[in-house]
């Protein structure tokens, strides 16, 4: 029996629009946030959950954390139905919303933590141990006694993360945890998530738009679009499907012209620069380079690095999102 079992989950919101002039009633539209989504996650997995804005990611997280009741389908988390018996369920999960603070704004971080200890009824000994572990792993010591409002975004995120893990949840939902963080903070956060997942076996479901996060952390990824699950499986495999094109830019000495290239290459010209898009499967890079060199001496050549965001954009386009 998987740890999270979601079957045919659906949720529809009714959105009332502003009344149009000259009409008595307001128009209502049904927004199908989720339409029959099914998946399962094993204990200890670290799964990425991606999709464009409005795909239904947050709705899924809200249902699985017991905030929302679905209209149809079933979901079991650790054998519990999340929206029934809310208190019993939330005791065992942790949720971090990147955009929403769970700690108290004007009080020192440590005071917030100690109140959370009371809220979750964590025994003092377990709390001390966990706090020490998190302080060490997330490097909280320098600002533990500083009010939250004086922290930088990166520090605040670390504090938030610690706050949601104090009660040692078995499942952690992360909703865009790296939003707005600088490179160093992002890396530190990723390292920590890996550590928490491996050391404590915490199951993690990570929602994000930052593909680097996913690539660094998750082997498995689920793609959601328009309330439906579009892909569920290996991240490298997903990427290889869309990773079909490479682009290089080059300039010749003395403005020599391009040699004729095989079919399937798209060439565009900007001043003296040529931009060539080709598919390495059809035309190996070595052969292309030989061809190019035969036309003259190359002064500059840049290969555009593989960009995961481009791949995802291509994928969303193809899936019609």
């Amino acid at each position, binding site marked *: 029996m998987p740890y999270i079992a979601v079957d045919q989950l659906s949720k529809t*919101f009714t959105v009332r629009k502003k009344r149009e002039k000259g009409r008595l009633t307001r128009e209502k539209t049904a927004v199908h946030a989720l339409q029959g989504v099914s998946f399962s996650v094993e204990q200890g997995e670290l799964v990425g959950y991606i999709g464009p*804005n409005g795909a239904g*990611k*947050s709705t899924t997280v*809200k249902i699985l*954390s*017991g*905030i*929302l*009741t679905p209209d149809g389908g079933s979901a079991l988390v650790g054998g519990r139905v999340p929206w029934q018996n*809310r*208190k*019993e369920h*939330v*005791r065992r*999960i942790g*949720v971090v*919303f990147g*955009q*929403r*603070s*769970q700690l*108290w*704004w*004007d*009080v020192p971080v440590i*005071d917030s933590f100690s*109140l959370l200890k*009371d*809220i*979750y*009824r964590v025994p003092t000994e377990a709390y001390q141990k966990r706090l020490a572990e998190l302080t060490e792993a997330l490097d909280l010591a320098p600002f533990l006694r500083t*009010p939250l409002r004086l922290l930088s975004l990166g520090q605040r995120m670390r504090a938030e993360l610690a706050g949601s893990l104090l009660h040692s949840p078995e499942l952690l939902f992360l*909703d865009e945890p790296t939003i707005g963080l600088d490179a160093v903070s992002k890396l530190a956060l990723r390292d920590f998530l890996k550590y928490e997942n491996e050391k404590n076996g915490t199951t993690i479901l990570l929602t994000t738009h930052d593909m680097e996060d996913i690539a660094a952390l998750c082997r498995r990824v689920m793609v959601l679009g328009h309330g439906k699950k579009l892909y569920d499986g290996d991240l490298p495999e997903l990427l290889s499907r869309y990773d079909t094109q490479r682009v290089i830019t080059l300039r010749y000495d003395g403005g020599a012209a391009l040699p004729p290239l095989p079919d399937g290459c798209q060439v565009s010209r900007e001043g003296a620069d040529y931009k060539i898009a080709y598919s390495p499967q059809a035309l190996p890079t070595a052969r292309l380079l030989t061809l190019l060199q035969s036309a003259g001496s190359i002064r500059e050549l840049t290969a555009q690095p593989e960009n995961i965001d481009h791949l995802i954009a291509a994928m969303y386009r193809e899936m019609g999102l």
Partner: protein
Amino acid sequence: MNTVKLYLRSMQMLMKSQLQYPVSFLMQTLAQLVMEGGEFMAVLLIVDRFDHLNQWTPGNLYFFFGMMSVTFYLTEIFGRGITGNFPSLVRTGQLDTLLLRPRGIVTQVLCSAVDPRRVACVAVGVAALILGSRQSAVQWTTGKALAMAEAILFGVLLILGLFLIEAIFCIHSVKSIELVNAITYGGRSACQYPVDIFPRPLRLLFTIAAPFALTLHVPSAYILGKPLYGWPAWTAFVSPAAGGVLFLMLYLLFARAMRYYRSTGS
């Protein structure tokens, strides 16, 4: 007991955070003093022109005013989460955060805010009570003190209950409904005077729908030695419970409404 401890710890922490801005806190407390003091001044000036209002002397009226002030503003200090904060909790989606914690929602909402500035208003209320009981020559007994404590306690619950109505509307419509203010703030303004000076429809409203008369006026009248409608003395100890009943009913309705809660944003 754990819930009470949690509430007290939250209050302590929130007080601390309010005091992070000491000057602002002081100024606002002062402003509250001026506001509520002005209100009492107005009552003093008006009441001073009459010998009596029905059977009530000016001193009696000050006492009624004091009871309402103390009760209402104690509610605002300790129940700020419900009396003031709830609509914004819903609108900003902060309520989601509360739902993610293994505690009751009303408990957590109560733990989410405190408004110590209102202590100035309570002080004005206490002054009115002292002045009122002096002028009315109240002979204090243990029974009377008990009746007063009970009235204030149930009065706080009553007012919390009335504010829960607004919270319930809020869950359904996201925006707060100002109409409910008619019986919360409106009730406060009207019921700082004893209910029997009002015409029948208002008397019914404040006895049955929003039972300020039962929770505050009956015991106050007993303390002043002029039983409301000539009711026997024991009613002063029983009727305030109406506030508790109202709170309980609305608490249950609130819990029901929470099942229909849909959060905002992502």
